[in-house]
């Protein structure tokens, strides 16, 4: 036998699996972490846009207009929101994120004419001031929920679920609970705070309709009311949300980020954004509500290409969480020793739950928080949003569209059989949509 025999690893037990089994054996508890699903999933990368040619006219890049605005809430609200771009900032809690990070996101959204969203734990004054359009979440935990904030919000989002954990509640670990956060949530400082998985005062769609009616009554029917659901059974959830009287639906695919959730949950519950979006659009079409009740899709959106493809599939807007944090500085290769101290490295960090965020985003530690310069951070997120919009416009013009919303499934082809089946668009080079024709 020569000494160079290749090391043979097991496909069933790769090093990460071995490590996880031994970690579980030592600690007796599952891993709780931040970020979204890390496993490979079918995504918008598996679709391509079909640019114009002889049978379609393109629009002139840099010259001809390609509009990007979207109206949300025109179904019932007296004051619908007029967004300049179809990209919103998703709800991320003050608690999971620092006040500085929340402020920077608010300022960036304001500069771009779009919304940012509160999160579990309530609204802060900093966030309200920084955001010209702020969506206020009503979550099962009801932490910090109060009618004053409901009235000073621009829209209300009833959160039923999050893509990272459909059917699951939340957990903000004690290390992140400062006295301010504890007071906002009416809980003792330093304890692990569980966020409920069910709303305390309603169950099922009939109740939800009455809950929405109550929120409308409290706010005199002024504010758009969104319902946010995790992608598990989007066909039912979308139709039931419409029936319950939602002005808009936020649908979060399984890639969706989180501040702290069990790894086993993140990786194994829910369906990816791609098939969820198709099911949701079909559900709306069945009710003749497509483009009448706006659909905001989230979970793994990273680029203008993702935006263009999501809109082509029928979304009205997208929402971003993780990518916005990355634009802020998440996973940037600075303070590398602090990543190492968490047992990770830039590019692989998912340690938001520790409160020791090396770049000052997912932390409540004043020293770490000061690493994020709020003006510079806001500018970065603004630049990133702006780039995404330019990218999406470029792609839409190439498909001959004068508005991003004019993109359509006919502009898409799939690169894999799986994506063709899930997105409901033909496999490239064929007319074949698996499961249909």
């Amino acid at each position, binding site marked *: 036998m020569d000494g160079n025999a290749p090391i043979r690893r097991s496909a069933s037990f790769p090093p990460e699996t071995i490590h996880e089994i031994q970690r579980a054996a030592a600690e007796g*508890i599952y891993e709780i972490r931040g970020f979204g699903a890390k496993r490979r999933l079918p995504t918008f990368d598996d679709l391509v846009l079909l640019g114009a040619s002889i049978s379609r006219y393109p629009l002139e890049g840099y010259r001809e207009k390609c509009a990007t605005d979207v109206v949300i809430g025109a179904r019932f609200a007296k004051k619908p929101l007029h967004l300049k771009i179809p990209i919103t900032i998703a709800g991320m809690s003050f608690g999971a994120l620092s006040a500085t990070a929340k402020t920077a996101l608010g300022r960036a959204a304001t500069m771009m004419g779009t919304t940012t969203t509160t999160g579990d734990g309530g609204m802060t004054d900093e966030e309200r001031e920084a955001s010209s359009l702020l969506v206020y979440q009503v979550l099962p935990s009801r932490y910090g929920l109060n009618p004053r904030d*409901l009235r000073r919000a621009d829209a209300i989002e009833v959160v039923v679920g999050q893509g990272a954990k459909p059917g699951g509640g939340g957990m903000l670990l*004690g290390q992140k609970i400062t006295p301010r956060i504890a007071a906002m949530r009416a809980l003792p400082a330093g304890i692990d705070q569980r966020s409920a998985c069910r709303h305390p005062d309603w169950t099922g769609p009939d109740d939800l309709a009455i*809950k929405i009616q109550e929120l409308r*009554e409290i706010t*005199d029917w002024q504010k758009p009311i969104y319902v946010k659901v995790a992608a598990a059974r989007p066909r039912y959830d979308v139709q039931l949300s419409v029936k319950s009287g939602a002005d808009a639906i936020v649908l979060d695919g399984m890639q969706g980020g989180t501040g702290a959730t069990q790894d086993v949950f993140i990786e194994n519950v829910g369906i990816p954004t791609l098939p969820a979006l198709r099911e949701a659009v079909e559900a709306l079409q069945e009710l003749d509500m497509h483009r009448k009740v706006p659909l905001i899709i989230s979970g793994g959106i990273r680029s203008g290409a993702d935006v263009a493809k999501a809109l082509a599939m029928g979304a009205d807007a997208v929402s971003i969480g993780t990518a916005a944090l990355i634009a802020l500085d998440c996973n940037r290769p600075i303070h590398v020793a602090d990543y190492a101290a968490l047992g990770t490295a830039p590019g692989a960090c998912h340690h938001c739950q520790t409160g020791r965020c090396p770049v000052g985003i997912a932390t409540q530690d004043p020293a770490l928080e000061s690493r994020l310069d709020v003006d510079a951070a806001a500018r970065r997120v603004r630049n990133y949003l702006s780039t995404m919009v330019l990218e999406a416009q470029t792609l839409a013009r190439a498909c001959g569209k004068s508005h991003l919303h004019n993109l359509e499934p006919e502009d898409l082809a799939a690169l894999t059989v799986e994506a063709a089946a899930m997105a409901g668009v033909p496999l490239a080079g064929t007319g074949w949509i698996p499961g249909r024709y």
Partner: protein
Amino acid sequence: MITVDLEETSVRDLNQRLHDLPGDTNERTWTVVNPGGRHALLAGLTLPLAVTVRGHVGYYCAGMNEAADVVIDGHAGVGVAENIMSGSVRVRGNASQAAAASGHGGLVVIEGDASARCGISMKGVDIVVGGSVGHMSAFMAQAGRLVVCGDAGGDLGDSLYEAVIYVQGTVASLGADCEEQPMADADRAAVAELLARAGIAGDPARFRRYGSARQLYHFHVDHADAY
């Protein structure tokens, strides 16, 4: 006193009229008749008004109440006084599920019985129930006090945080992390004060106190059986 008949006026119009009242209004005493089980009645009041509803109300009556004193001279549907911030809500009859859910402050009095999940997620409200409460009452209750003059259903105070529960009658079972604790003089004084504010007769000496054992405040593998 102003009387509004809900056979003639919509809930929307009534709520809007109450929301539009200026802070220095003289129109402080209201009576609502023929509520007919309608939902979201008197939701989102912000002024110190005295409002009496003659009849039964549907879901979320007096939801998110601030400052107003609301009396429901009948039974109340799901989530009466949900997320109440201040003021008071009194139900002369019985209340359905989730009464005073996630209430942050103020006083909720239910003279009859309250159904399941009374005081669920409560965050500082005081609740006095003249009769009994259903199962899972004070589930995940964070702060405030729940006084039950009758009996409590199963899993009382499951996953309780810092809210305190006083029960005069029997408790079918305690939920995870809820334990009986000694009644101190301060507890008897608190019960006496709450009963007096609620206008409900009772002997504070006969109440037992239930609070959090605080074993689940930090997730630990040795407590996995409790979940």
